[in-house]
C-alpha cells in the first residue's frame, strides 16, 4: 500500500512538471487548418507582446483590446488573442531569448530596431500580404503612412514592420517658472538655452534648471540622439563608420559639459528615471525637461507646461530632430501565419484604445488617427513642433535604412556611453575613443 502511494505521488509530480512546458504567453496551438465560422475564442490563439508605450493604464488597455479582438471573431476563425506587456528595462533580452529558444510570440511591438535584427536572423514574418490587402481594398492607410515609412521597414524585399507611430523626445518647460525668471523668449540655440538656465538658477536656486532621465540605456540614448542631432552629429557616417570623433560631436559634448559644470543640468540626472523627471516637472522642481510626448502631464498642469521649440547647435542652420518609426512586426515561428496576419491587420486598424485609454506616448503616424486620439492640445503642439517638422529624421541619421546591428548598439546604449561618462563626472573624451573601438567591433561581429 505504501509502495503504491509513493508511486502515485511520483507520477503526480512528473505530470506536474510536464504541464509546465507550455509556450510562454499562453497559447494553445492549432493545426493551422481551423475552419471558418468557428465560435469566437474557440479557434487558434495568437499572442502579442507589446512594450509599455503608455503608463500604468497601458496593460489594462492591451487586455481590453485583446478581448475585443477575440470577440470580433476575425475572419470567422474564432481566433483567441492574448497579450503580454513587456517592461522596457530588459525588453531586448526578453524578445531575443524568446526568439532563440523558439518561444517567440506571434506579434511583437518593441523598440523600432527590433524588426531589422530579427529579419536579419531570418525570423521575421513577411507582412506584405497585409500591405497588398490594403492596396486591394483601396484603404487610405497606405497613403497616410506613406511609401517612405513602408520602404524604411522593408528588408530584402520583405515588409518586416508595419509603422504605426512616430516616437521621439522634445523639450518641455514650466511656464510659471519662466515667467517668474523674466524669460520672455524661448531659446533657439544652446547658447540662448544656457542664458535661460542662468536666469532660472539665479531666481530659483532650489529648482533644477534642466533635467532628463539618465538611469537606463534606453532613456540616455534618446537624450544623446537629441543633443547629437541638434548639431548635425551622428554615431555613424553614411558608410557605417564610427563618427563620434567628429568635430560636431566634440562640439556638442563640450556644450553639455559646460551646462553640467555650471549646474544647469541636475547633478543627479544619471540616476533619474523617466518617472522621476516627469514628477519633478509636475511639481515644479525642474524648469525644463527632455522627454517623450507629453501624455504624462497632469490635468492641473496642462496650462502650465509648454512645448519648447527645437534648439540648434553652432554647426547647423536648422537643428535635426531625432525620431523613430515604431512598428508592429511578427515572427515566422508562428504556428498560425494566416491568423497572425489577420490579427495584426485588425489590431493595426483598431488600436485607438491604446492611445485613448492606454496613454500611448507615441504620435500616430496617420493624420486621421491623430485627429481621433490626440485630444490634448499640448500633445498636438508637440507633434507639430517636433515630430511632424520638416527636419525630423529617423535617429539612424545619416544612414538611410536600418542596419541589423543597430539593435545591439541600442540594447547597451553604445552611442550614449560618452554622455554617460560625462554625467558621471568621468573622462568622456577617453570614453569616445573606447566607444569607437566598440562600435567597430560590433560592426565587424555583424559581418559588415
Amino acid at each position, binding site marked *: 500500500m*505504501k*509502495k503504491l502511494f*509513493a*508511486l502515485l*505521488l*511520483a507520477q503526480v*509530480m*512528473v505530470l506536474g*512538471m510536464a504541464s509546465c512546458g507550455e509556450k510562454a504567453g499562453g497559447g494553445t496551438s492549432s493545426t493551422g487548418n481551423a475552419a471558418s465560422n468557428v465560435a469566437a475564442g474557440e479557434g487558434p490563439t495568437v499572442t502579442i507582446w507589446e512594450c509599455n508605450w503608455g503608463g500604468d493604464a497601458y496593460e489594462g488597455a492591451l487586455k481590453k483590446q485583446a478581448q475585443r479582438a477575440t470577440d470580433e471573431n476575425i475572419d470567422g476563425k474564432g481566433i483567441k488573442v492574448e497579450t503580454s506587456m513587456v517592461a522596457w528595462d*530588459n525588453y*531586448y*533580452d526578453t524578445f*531575443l*531569448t524568446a526568439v*532563440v529558444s523558439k518561444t517567440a510570440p506571434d506579434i511583437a511591438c518593441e523598440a523600432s530596431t527590433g524588426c531589422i*535584427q530579427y529579419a*536579419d*536572423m531570418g525570423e521575421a514574418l513577411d507582412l506584405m500580404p497585409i500591405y497588398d490587402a490594403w492596396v486591394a481594398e483601396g484603404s487610405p492607410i497606405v497613403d497616410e503612412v506613406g511609401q517612405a515609412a513602408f520602404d524604411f521597414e522593408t528588408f530584402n524585399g520583405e515588409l518586416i514592420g508595419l509603422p504605426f507611430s512616430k516616437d521621439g523626445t522634445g523639450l518641455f518647460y514650466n511656464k510659471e517658472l519662466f515667467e517668474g525668471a523674466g524669460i520672455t523668449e524661448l531659446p533657439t540655440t544652446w547658447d540662448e538655452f544656457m542664458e535661460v538656465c542662468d536666469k532660472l538658477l539665479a531666481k530659483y536656486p532650489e529648482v*533644477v534648471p534642466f533635467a532628463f532621465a*539618465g*538611469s*537606463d*540605456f534606453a532613456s540616455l540614448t534618446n537624450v544623446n540622439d537629441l543633443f547629437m542631432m541638434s548639431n548635425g552629429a551622428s554615431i555613424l557616417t553614411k558608410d557605417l563608420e564610427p563618427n563620434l570623433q567628429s568635430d560636431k560631436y566634440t562640439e556638442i559634448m563640450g556644450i553639455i559639459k559646460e551646462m553640467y559644470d555650471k549646474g544647469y543640468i541636475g*547633478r*543627479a*540626472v*544619471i*540616476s533619474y*528615471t523617466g518617472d*522621476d523627471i516627469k514628477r*519633478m516637472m509636475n511639481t515644479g*522642481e525642474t524648469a525644463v525637461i527632455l522627454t517623450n510626448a507629453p501624455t504624462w502631464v497632469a490635468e492641473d498642469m496642462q496650462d502650465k507646461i509648454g512645448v519648447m521649440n527645437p534648439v540648434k547647435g553652432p554647426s547647423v542652420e536648422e537643428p535635426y530632430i531625432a525620431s523613430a518609426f515604431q512598428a508592429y512586426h511578427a515572427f515566422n515561428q508562428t504556428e498560425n501565419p494566416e491568423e497572425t496576419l489577420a490579427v495584426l491587420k485588425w489590431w493595426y486598424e483598431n488600436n485607438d484604445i491604446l492611445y485613448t485609454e492606454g496613454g500611448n506616448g507615441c504620435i500616430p503616424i496617420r493624420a486621421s488617427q491623430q485627429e481621433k486620439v490626440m485630444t490634448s492640445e499640448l500633445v498636438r503642439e508637440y507633434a507639430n513642433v517636433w515630430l511632424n517638422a520638416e527636419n525630423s529624421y529617423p535617429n539612424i541619421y545619416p544612414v538611410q535604412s536600418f542596419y*541589423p546591428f543597430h539593435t*545591439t548598439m541600442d*540594447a*547597451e546604449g553604445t552611442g550614449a*556611453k560618452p554622455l*554617460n*561618462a560625462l*554625467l*558621471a*563626472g*568621468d573622462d568622456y573624451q577617453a570614453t569616445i575613443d573606447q566607444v569607437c573601438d566598440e562600435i567597430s567591433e*560590433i560592426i565587424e*561581429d*555583424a*559581418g559588415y
Partner: protein
Amino acid sequence: MLRPRSKLESNRLGVAMIMPALILMLLLLIYPLIQGISYSFTSYRFNRPNATAFIGFSNYVDIITSDHKFYSTLGFTFLNALGAVLISYAAGFAIALLLNKKLHGRGLFRAVILLPWVISSSVTATNWQWMLNDRHGIVNAFLEKIGAVEDPVLFLANPTLAKFTVIIVGAWKCLPFMTVVILAGLQSISPDLYEAASIDGAGFWRSLKNITLPGIRGVTTMCTTLQFIWNFNNFENIYLLTSGGPNESTFTLPIYIYFTAFARNKIAYASAMAVLVMVIMMVFALIRFRLQRNAEE
C-alpha cells in the same frame, strides 16, 4: 549476508521517492551547467546561430589575456562581496549577541530582523532608490536636517559613492542570514562555560575572545563563505538598483556577463566568463574550508 527483504524494498522506495526531485535538479541545474560549459568552447552568438563553430579554448584565452574589463569588473566584484560580508557579519554578530539575551519582545525583534531577507529584491531596490534620491529621498532630507551635509549626497549618481551604496545595500540584504546563523551558533554554546569563566573573574571581552568566538568558529566559516559566494554571484541586487551604473562603476561580473550575453549576443564568450567565475568560487571555497580545517586541527 543477505539484507532482509524489507530493507531492500525500503531502499527501492527511498530511491523512488527522491527520483522526481533528482530529475528536476538534473534538468534545472546540471543540464544548463553542461550546456553552458559546452557553449564556452564554441563561437555561438544569438544573432548568428547557424555560424556556430567549435573554437576550443579561444574564448578563455581572450578573456584571460586581453579582456581588461573582465579584470576591472572582477576587482569590484571581490570588493563588493567582501565588503557586504564583513559589514553584515559585524552587524549580525552584534545583533545576535543582543537577541541571545533575555530581552522583552525578543521574539518580535527576531521576526523583524528577517525583513530584508523576505522582501523581494525588486521592492527593496525601488525603495532604496526612493530613499536615496537627491531631491526627495528621506536619507538626504535627514542628513540636511541635522546639518551633516549642505548639498544632497549623490548616493546613486556619483560613481565612487555608488560603489559604497551597493555594498551597504548588499550588507543590509545579508544581515538577516548572518544574524540567524550566528544566533544559532551562540545558542549552541553551553551557558556553563560562561558561568565558569565568570567565577574565574573573566569579564565580557575575555569571555567573548575565549568562549564566544571559538564557539561559533564553525558557523562563522560556513556563513561567511556562503554569503561571499552568494554576493559574488548576485545579479539582481545591483542591477535593479543601479543597472551597473553610473557609467558602469558598479558593474560586477554577473552584470558584465549578462550584458555580454544578451546585449552583445556573445553567449559563448559570456559562458566562458561564467565558467571562469565558477572555477574561481570553487577554488575560494576549497581554500577557505582547508584553512578552517587547519585552524581546528
